[in-house]
C-alpha cells in the first residue's frame, strides 16, 4: 500500500459528532470558571522594579552604608597628611565598586537560577532593579569619596572615577567569564590593591597623565561595564549554565 493511500485513509478516519448536551455543559462550566477566576493584574516595568527593591536594597545598602562610614573616617583621618588622600580616595572608590558583588548572581550561587528563570517575572527587569539598587549606593559612596578628597576635578577623575570604573569593569568581566563571585571579588580586589599601591607610591606622577588619556581609560571602562551589564540583563549563557545547551 502506498504512503499516499495511507495518509488519505488516516485523514478520512471518522470524526465522531460531539454530543450537543455535553458540549453545552462544557461551555456553561467554562463560562462559570471564567467569571469566577481572579484576573491577574499586569505590573508595569517600574512597579516591578520598585517592588523588587525592597528585597535587594537592605543588604546592599547596609554594606554600602558601612563603607560610607569607613570612607568618611578614613578620608577624615588622612586629611592632616595630604599625600595619603589620593590613595585613600582611590581605595574608597575601589571598595565601593566591590560592594555589589556579594549580592550579585545569588540565585546562580545558591543553585536557584533555574527556579528564578522559570518564574513569570522578567529576568531583565529583576537584574536591572538589583543593578540599579547597587548603583545608587555606589554613586553615593563615590560622591562622598570625591567630595572628601577635596581635590579638583582632575584629582577626582584620576583617583576616584578611574579606579572605580576599572575595578567595576574587571570584576564584572571576571564574574561573567571566570564564572564565580569569589573569583570576581579576588580579581577586583587585586586590581584595587594595584591601583591603591600605584596611587600611594606615584600619586604626583599619576597626576601628570594627560587628561585625554584618563578620560579615554574611563570611557573604555564605561563601555566594558555597559557590555557586561547588557549581557547580564539579557541572561546570556544561561541556557548553557543550566545544561540546556551544549
Amino acid at each position: 500500500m502506498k504512503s499516499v493511500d495511507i495518509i488519505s485513509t488516516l485523514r478520512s478516519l471518522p470524526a465522531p459528532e460531539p454530543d450537543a448536551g455535553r458540549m453545552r455543559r462544557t461551555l456553561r462550566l467554562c463560562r462559570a470558571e471564567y467569571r469566577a477566576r481572579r484576573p491577574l493584574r499586569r505590573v508595569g516595568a517600574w512597579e516591578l522594579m520598585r517592588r523588587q527593591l525592597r528585597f535587594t536594597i537592605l543588604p546592599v545598602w547596609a554594606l554600602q552604608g558601612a563603607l560610607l562610614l569607613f570612607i568618611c573616617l578614613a578620608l577624615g583621618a588622612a586629611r592632616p597628611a595630604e599625600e595619603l588622600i589620593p590613595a585613600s580616595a582611590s581605595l574608597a572608590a575601589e571598595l565601593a565598586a566591590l560592594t555589589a558583588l556579594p549580592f550579585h548572581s545569588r540565585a546562580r550561587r545558591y543553585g536557584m537560577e533555574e527556579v528564578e528563570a522559570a518564574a513569570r517575572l522578567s529576568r531583565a527587569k529583576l537584574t536591572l532593579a538589583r543593578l540599579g539598587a547597587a548603583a545608587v549606593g555606589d554613586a553615593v559612596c563615590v560622591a562622598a569619596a570625591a567630595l572628601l578628597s577635596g581635590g579638583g576635578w582632575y584629582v577626582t577623575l584620576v583617583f576616584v572615577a578611574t579606579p572605580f570604573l576599572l575595578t567595576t569593569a574587571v570584576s564584572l568581566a571576571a564574574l561573567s567569564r571566570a564564572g564565580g563571585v569569589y573569583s570576581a571579588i579576588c580579581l577586583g580586589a587585586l586590581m584595587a590593591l594595584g591601583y591603591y599601591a600605584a596611587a600611594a607610591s606615584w600619586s604626583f606622577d599619576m597626576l601628570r597623565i594627560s587628561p585625554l588619556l584618563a578620560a579615554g581609560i574611563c570611557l573604555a571602562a564605561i563601555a566594558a561595564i555597559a557590555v557586561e551589564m547588557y549581557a547580564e540583563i539579557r541572561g546570556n549563557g544561561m541556557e548553557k549554565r543550566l545544561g540546556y545547551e551544549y
Partner: protein
Amino acid sequence: MRDGELFELLEAGDISALDELIGAYYPEILRYCLRHTPTRECAEDAAQETFLNCVRHIEAYVHRGHFRAWLYKIAANACADQFRRAKDSAEPPERAADEPGYERAELKADLERALAKLPAEQRELLLLRYAHELTLREIAEIRREPMRTVQSRLRAALKALRKLM
C-alpha cells in the same frame, strides 16, 4: 474569526468569544480524547477538563498563535489523568474509537488494526499529523521536540505503518 481576534475580544470582556473559541476546538479535542481514553464518557470528561484547565490558565497564556498546540498539550495531560482514573476502576474498557459502521470499511479496519500494533509514540505522531492535521511545528511544540526530529520520526512511523498493512 481567528484565534487572535477572539483573544482580543475576550480581553475586552466579550465572553461570547470564549464560547466561539471552545466551540471551534471542541470537536477536534474530543476526537483526540476519544483516541486517548478507554471510553467515550472518559473522552468527554477529558475534553471538558481540557477546556476548564484552559480557562483557568488563560491569563497565563500569552497568545502567540500557538493556541492549538497549547490546547493539545492540555488535552494530552487530561487524557493521561482520565486514563489513569479509568485504569484504577474495575470496569472493562470499551474502545471509544469503535464507532458503529467502522468495520464495514475494510481499509479503515486494516488501518485501525495496524495503528493499534504501532508503538504509542508513532501512533500518536501519525494521528496528530494526519487525522488532526496539526502542523509539524505544532506537533514539535506539543512534544517539546525539535521540528526535524518530529519530521524524521513521522517518516519512520509512516514506514512502520506501511509495513504492517
